[in-house]
């Protein structure tokens, strides 16, 4: 459904973030993309959703095809129109707007009023907390509630594929678990999910397939359960042994600005 | 490397400096034998005007009228057997540009026919006296008196205010015990005018209610209301032309149905096409120390014809600026004509004091420049707007000096 091939992203004149990343998301299920901070995960998500220019970046090589259509370099609105919706890292809910208005905005590309109302009802069943707080400003919600809202807002657009960028970031372990369940629910409802996570344990527990990105390259890929058992992943991402490998550089400091 | 750099620099600098300074052209050209701006055939005079800034219309008008006079003088053979040439520079009412333009023009000219703008004159005063330059002004501030380098043509703002108050009383528009409202601009015009109105109201047993405004103020409702609350029976107004329109309309809006007398700069012909026109025609008068472009004397008619010949139906915004510039250019010719034997800046300064009875019928009052500490005249005219008069103004009262203005003591600044 989503085919990325040989992707290279650059921010201005800086060194490219990727060195030809390729990955694939199937028609159903959850695909996890793992990697340390600075590996290029967020840039990859931005490349797919078309928001790279907002951060001064661009796709300089490779292709991103969604349902056979090239989307690399397309603007975010047309990407959304094609059914590819992203929940960004850091949630980016509309703090000054109410929960209801956030959901309205999420469904802004859906023409049918009736369809919007139906989706909203379903979402309120899925996230009862949001229904309770529908008149409240999103900025006043807790972190976990904001994450739920961000996901619900994306689902309002009735996506064909949902991209989730670091949904567990900054959340308490219990909430992380809840997010994992939500992701599983969404894919069960028939919406495939590309999940980008630093929290490999959670991601691998819900994903079917996974890719591991390191310094702009895919270094590992395969079925999630196999990866979860591999030594490398266990050591590096599941925290069974701490500290980076010798020789593995920390992210280039200049890149922090762009990926933070 | 880092340490060696200054040595390289200074050595090279020294060598080059020695090589270079041997042949400075500036050294030879700056011999002081000849007077700047004077050759056997020409006399150059400078003009520093605002031709592109906020007062560009006035600047251009003065420039044109000055050129009319110069052409006339040259056609009649020039002065001291030499033709007058103008060196015009635009300062756009920007002090920095004015100072550089002065530096550029000063070495080329005998004197300045006109330097426009009080801020500009202020910035240049020290240089002007250092250069023994004689400078004509488009300003009537008594604070400019006492400096032999500056020419203030005609009566000063304070005297004009006194004459205006005197006229209001003579016409019965103000009676003893009445209140005069005075709305005045912060700056040399308004504050000097206030001295005059304060003096006149004291002498004539009137009360004064004054309100200060800034040149940039557009909404003057509160000032007008304040004057109204003080019970003013007439308003003396020192403002820009735009503000005049605002004041008369706001007075009308506030139901304050009293005469408004403005100074010479407070009117522009285009105001008569604005919404303020009815109020202006009804209430507004102008006091002026120089002549009126629609006056019926031959000298004035000749000038008006020149303007018509050049601009056709397009009448000047400010008839006063046309008259003043033309009049003072002729005055300059008179001054220079008095020192043909000594065409130097010092000679010109001395010649200025010899002019005691210069007049041109209807263009201006008889001028006496002998004492720089006294105004060259104490006479004023009163004008009022009239759509059919040339440049929008007609005569109410010809040049006259009030007794009050005669005895008024000016403290030169």
């Amino acid at each position, binding site marked *: 459904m989503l085919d990325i091939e040989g992707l290279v992203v650059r921010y201005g004149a800086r060194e490219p973030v990727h060195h030809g990343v390729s990955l694939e998301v199937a028609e159903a299920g959850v695909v996890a993309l793992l990697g340390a901070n600075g590996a290029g995960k967020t840039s990859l998500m931005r490349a797919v959703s078309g928001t790279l220019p907002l951060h001064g970046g661009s796709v300089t090589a490779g292709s991103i095809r969604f349902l056979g259509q090239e989307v690399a370099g397309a603007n975010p609105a047309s990407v959304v129109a094609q059914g590819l919706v992203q929940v960004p890292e850091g949630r980016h809910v509309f703090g000054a707007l109410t929960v209801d208005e956030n959901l309205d905005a999420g469904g802004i590309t859906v023409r049918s009023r009736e369809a919007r109302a139906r989706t909203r009802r379903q979402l309120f069943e899925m996230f009862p907390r949001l229904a309770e707080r529908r008149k409240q400003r999103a900025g006043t919600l807790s972190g976990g509630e904001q994450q739920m809202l961000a996901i619900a807002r994306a689902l309002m657009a009735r996506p064909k594929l949902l991209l989730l960028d670091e949904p567990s970031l900054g959340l308490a372990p219990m909430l992380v678990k809840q997010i994992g369940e939500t992701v599983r629910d969404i894919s069960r409802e028939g919406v495939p999910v590309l999940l980008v996570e630093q929290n490999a344990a959670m991601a691998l527990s819900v994903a079917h397939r996974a890719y591991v990105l390191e310094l702009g390259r895919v270094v590992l890929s395969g079925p999630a359960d196999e990866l979860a058992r591999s030594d490398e992943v266990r050591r590096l991402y599941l925290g069974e042994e701490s500290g980076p490998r010798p020789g593995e550089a920390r992210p280039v400091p200049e890149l922090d600005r762009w990926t933070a | *490397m880092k340490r060696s750099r200054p040595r390289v620099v200074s050595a090279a600098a020294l060598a080059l*400096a020695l090589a270079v300074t041997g042949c400075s052209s500036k*050294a030879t050209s700056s011999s002081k034998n000849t007077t700047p701006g004077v050759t056997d055939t020409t006399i150059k005079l400078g003009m520093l005007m605002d031709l592109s800034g906020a007062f560009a219309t006035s600047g251009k008008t003065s420039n044109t009228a000055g050129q009319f006079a110069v052409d006339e003088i040259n056609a009649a053979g020039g002065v001291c057997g030499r033709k007058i040439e103008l060196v015009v520079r635009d300062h756009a009412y920007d002090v920095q540009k004015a100072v*550089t333009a002065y530096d*550029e023009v000063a070495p080329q000219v005998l004197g300045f026919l006109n330097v426009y703008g009080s801020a500009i004159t202020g910035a240049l005063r020290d240089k002007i006296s250092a250069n023994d330059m004689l400078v004509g002004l488009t300003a009537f501030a008594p604070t400019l008196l006492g400096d032999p380098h500056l020419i203030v043509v005609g009566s000063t703002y304070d005297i004009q205010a006194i004459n205006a108050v005197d006229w209001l009383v003579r016409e019965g528009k103000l009676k003893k015990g009445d209140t005069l409202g005075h709305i005045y601009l912060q700056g040399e015009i308004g504050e000097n005018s206030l001295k005059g109105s304060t003096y006149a109201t004291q002498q004539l047993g009137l009360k004064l209610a004054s309100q200060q405004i800034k040149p940039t103020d557009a909404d003057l409702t509160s000032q007008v209301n304040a004057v109204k609350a003080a019970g003013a029976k007439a308003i003396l107004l020192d403002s820009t032309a735009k503000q005049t329109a605002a004041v008369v309309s706001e007075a009308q809006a506030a139901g304050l149905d009293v005469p408004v007398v403005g100074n010479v700069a407070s009117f522009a012909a285009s105001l008569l096409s604005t919404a303020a026109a009815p109020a202006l025609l009804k209430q507004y008068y102008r006091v002026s120390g120089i002549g009126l472009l629609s006056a019926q004397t031959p000298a004035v008619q000749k000038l008006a014809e020149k303007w018509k010949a050049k601009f056709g139906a397009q009448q000047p915004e400010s008839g006063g600026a046309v008259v003043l510039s033309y009049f003072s250019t002729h005055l300059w010719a008179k001054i220079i004509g008095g020192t043909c034997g000594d065409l130097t800046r010092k000679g010109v300064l001395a010649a200025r004091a010899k002019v005691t009875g210069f007049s041109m019928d209807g263009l201006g009052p008889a001028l006496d420049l002998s004492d720089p500490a006294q105004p060259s005249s104490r006479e004023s005219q009163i004008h009022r707007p009239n759509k059919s008069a040339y440049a929008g103004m007609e005569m109410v009262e010809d040049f006259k000096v009030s007794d009050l203005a005669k005895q008024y003591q000016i403290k030169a600044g």
Partner: protein
Amino acid sequence: MSDATATAAVAPRAVARRLPGALLLAAAVVVLLALPLYLEAFWLRIGLFSMATAVGALGLTILFGAAGQLSLGHAFFVAVGTYGYAFLSGGDTGHVKGLGLPPIVAAVLATLLAGVCGLLFSPVAGRLRGIYLGIASLGLVFLGHHLLLNLRPVTGGYDGRSVTPFSLGGFLFSDSSDLAVLGVPFGAVESLWYLFLAVTAVATLVARNVLRGRPGRAFRLMRDNEVGAAAMGVRVQRAKASAFVLSSMYAGVAGVLTALAFQRAVPDYFDLGLSIDFLAMIILGGLGSTSGAIVGATFVVALPIVLSRYADALPLVVGPGQDGLDASIAAQFVYGALVVVVMLTQPGGLRAMVHTLRQRRRPPYARRTP
């Protein structure tokens, strides 16, 4: 390219690359020193204004370029320098008072006074960011203008006050000095040229050291991330205040120089337009760089004046008083359009443009990625 790396041990290639630079600098210094012997007062005056403005721009580029504090109040601090000098060095004339201090003392005190004003404003500056700070400081310009008009005994009101010529060790920097060098009479502009050159050079060196040294790093850290800077041991409030005070003192020096260049202090010069011009200068030149500030200042100051002078020679532009496009308006058009074009093509300013050109010319091995 820090100087610390350019020790004697550096490969000969690096030395070879730097040598032309040193010679260029030497040539520039010679030319600058010799100019008063050749140029007329008009050009020297432009130079004086440019240098005075450049010093002010240096201060703003430290404040805004490095520390990220947007100030639209720079004109105010320049005014403090100008009037401070005029008041402290001036004598009593009529209603206008003065303390009659020796000019050099007055100049130093005026600079400190501007710094103190900056310090007084720093509680506000420290609390505000971005556009809030920009407009709050804009308030200073209006407040300052109001004070200039109303504090008559100090400022002389709308008419301004004259400025005591500078003197140092008995030498008077004015037209009444009898000094002549190689037959060229040294009046105010010629002698002030050297004074300004010296002050500008010192100001540039200090600014360069500040920007390249520890304070500059602290400022930039603070600009990019206050919390991060605090975590790295930068005392944010103090660093902000010191950036503000330093920049105010630069403005103060610029003010003193402006006073000397004008030979008179007039209130209307210190308006919002001046503050905005300062901002345009440093961004046109290249934000946060000393050379950018100087180039930007020279450009903004000189362009309208030079264009007016050569109006006759330019197509479409008419001389003063003729009908058509006035030189001064044309200068405004060119200035405005250039600002737009530079921002469209080189948002990094003229300095970035030079940098790109230089990189293009340089052989590939010398090219560095920034």
